């Protein structure tokens, strides 16, 4: 039997000719990435010195820190946390990227999504680097291991392969495709495994859309998602790659734990109803539900194609009076391009509140709801209390549906506006 891309990447990272799913290996991460967050980075920096007596990380170029949560700071304590991060980066020779946007996106822009690379972070949404053929895994507090050891222990994961076939209909986006995968496979189908996405439909899904799909892999139970490099992803990732690694792909006869074919031709826009990311439904079932807030942004969505379709829908129209629409481009680079294309003008003219890139709208630090309010959101998650009150509700939809719902103040099918 042949090998999966995940097996090939971990073979190289562990210095083995060949590893198979189930093997436990010591692998050297090519990149160790984190954003600063209380209880994570500040604790890791302290533990490294106090518990392990380590003054310097091995090969600081492998490390990258992002300041993207609590940006801008609203309390002196938050700014103090950021200063700890800046000081640590300066002391270690580790780059700290600040005010550039959401780290998972900026990491791709800066070349950390090197095809074939093995990447770790504490946050699971780093899986989106898999769009470019990197194996990027969120390991929660185990990230400490990568700071105090050059090699980390990892069990080579099995892989579930999903072949997407058919073609998305207008008004249907990659966001819908991901949640449809959860609906078809269930929220535990890929537990502890890699979700490998392929199939002919991928050719019709942009790199941005692929980042949306791979970003959310955790909601299938997967530890990450990955796509074999193709012409489009290599054209983006290779020129900016930070390492010279030969890209690898799964063999045609790779051994998967399961293979699923999912046809997206008949897929309609979906809504993920609260309070769980497992609750995918057709949006049409919930059309008309009153909503008070819209959030277009996050590491999952908020890229140019999301902003473009929102602008297309809102052009010449107005957000319903009283409805709060927050638009947060995923990175400052995306913000700049959106401005050049005139999208910011269109969105602002329609009544959207467009702000600089930050994670803060996604995890309930800004743009929060009171009891009884409901939001349509492209954020990552719809659990209780994620955007403020535990008595508020979050309906996850694609960017087009956020825009359409903002016009009506009700969950709206975007296809009527296209």
């Amino acid at each position: 039997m042949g090998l999966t891309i995940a097996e090939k990447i971990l073979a190289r990272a562990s210095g083995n000719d060949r590893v198979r799913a189930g093997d436990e290996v010591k692998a050297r991460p090519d990149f160790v990435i984190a954003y600063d967050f209380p209880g994570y980075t500040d604790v890791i920096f302290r533990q490294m010195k106090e518990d392990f007596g380590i003054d310097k990380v091995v090969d600081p170029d492998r490390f990258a820190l992002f300041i993207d949560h609590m940006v801008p700071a609203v309390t002196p304590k938050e700014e103090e946390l950021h200063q700890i991060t800046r000081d640590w980066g300066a002391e270690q020779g580790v780059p700290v990227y600040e005010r550039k946007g959401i780290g998972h996106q900026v990491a791709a822009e800066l070349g950390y999504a090197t095809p074939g690379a093995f990447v770790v972070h504490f946050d699971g949404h780093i899986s989106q680097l898999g769009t470019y053929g990197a194996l990027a895994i969120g390991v929660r507090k185990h990230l400490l291991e990568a700071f105090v050891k050059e090699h980390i222990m990892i069990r080579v994961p099995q892989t579930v392969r999903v072949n997407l076939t058919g073609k998305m209909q207008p008004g249907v986006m990659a966001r819908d495709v991901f949640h449809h995968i959860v609906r078809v496979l269930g929220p535990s189908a890929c537990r502890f495994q890699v979700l490998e996405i392929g199939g002919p439909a991928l050719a019709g899904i942009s790199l941005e859309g692929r980042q949306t799909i791979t970003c959310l892999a955790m909601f299938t139970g997967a530890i990450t998602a990955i796509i074999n490099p193709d012409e489009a992803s290599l054209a983006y990732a290779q020129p900016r790659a930070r390492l010279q690694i030969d890209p690898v792909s799964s063999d045609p006869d790779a051994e998967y734990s399961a293979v699923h074919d999912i046809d997206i031709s008949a897929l309609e826009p979906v809504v993920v109803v609260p309070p769980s990311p497992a609750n995918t439904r057709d949006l049409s079932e919930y059309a008309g539900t009153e909503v008070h807030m819209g959030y277009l942004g996050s590491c999952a969505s908020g890229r140019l194609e999301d902003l473009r379709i929102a602008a297309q829908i809102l052009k010449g129209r107005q957000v319903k009076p009283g409805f709060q629409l927050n638009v947060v481009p995923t990175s400052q680079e995306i913000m700049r391009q959106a401005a050049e294309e005139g999208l910011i003008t269109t969105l602002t003219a329609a009544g959207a509140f467009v702000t600089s890139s930050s994670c803060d709208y996604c995890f309930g630090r800004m743009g929060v709801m009171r009891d009884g309010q409901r939001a349509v959101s492209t954020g990552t998650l719809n659990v209780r209390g994620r955007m403020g009150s535990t008595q508020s509700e979050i309906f996850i939809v694609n960017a087009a549906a956020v825009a359409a719902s903002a016009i009506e103040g009700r969950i709206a099918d975007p296809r009527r506006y296209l």
Partner: protein
Amino acid sequence: MELKNLRGRAAFVFEEEDFDVDQIVGVTNIKLKDPAELAAVAMQEYDPDFAQQVRPGDILIGGRNFGYGHPHYPPMIAMRHLGVAGVVAESFSPGYWRGEIAMGFPQAACPGVLGLVNRWDELELDWQALELRNLTTGKALPIEPLSQADRLMLMQGGLIGYLKARDAEPAG
């Protein structure tokens, strides 16, 4: 050195699939830090007398994909404060699993456990025999083996102890 077996009663059975552990303390309490405060609010929605009834060494039982969603640490901080010694579930969500193993909190996957155990049954989790025994009914089911790293982490009381133990190994 072997991992110590667990012996205790099934303090609660969470039958729900994809159970979001944050519900144990309630999302409104998820930012509490003090273990005693967390313990005081734990399980109010499920069994208000839980704190009075649970005993040190008791075990929680979970369903399929236990810990799904966006798990935080406070619920199991509360459970450990109350003396709960570990969790046995049909299967686990990886994010939850990694988080709790790093805390040194024993977790074992045991397909079929919901059919094996009723609340308050006396249980023994045997890591060597790789089985969960229901001492009340005399029945048993196999548990899934831990990875080497997870087993060492539980033996060393969590991530820090595990990594320190690895300091003894050759550099690299």
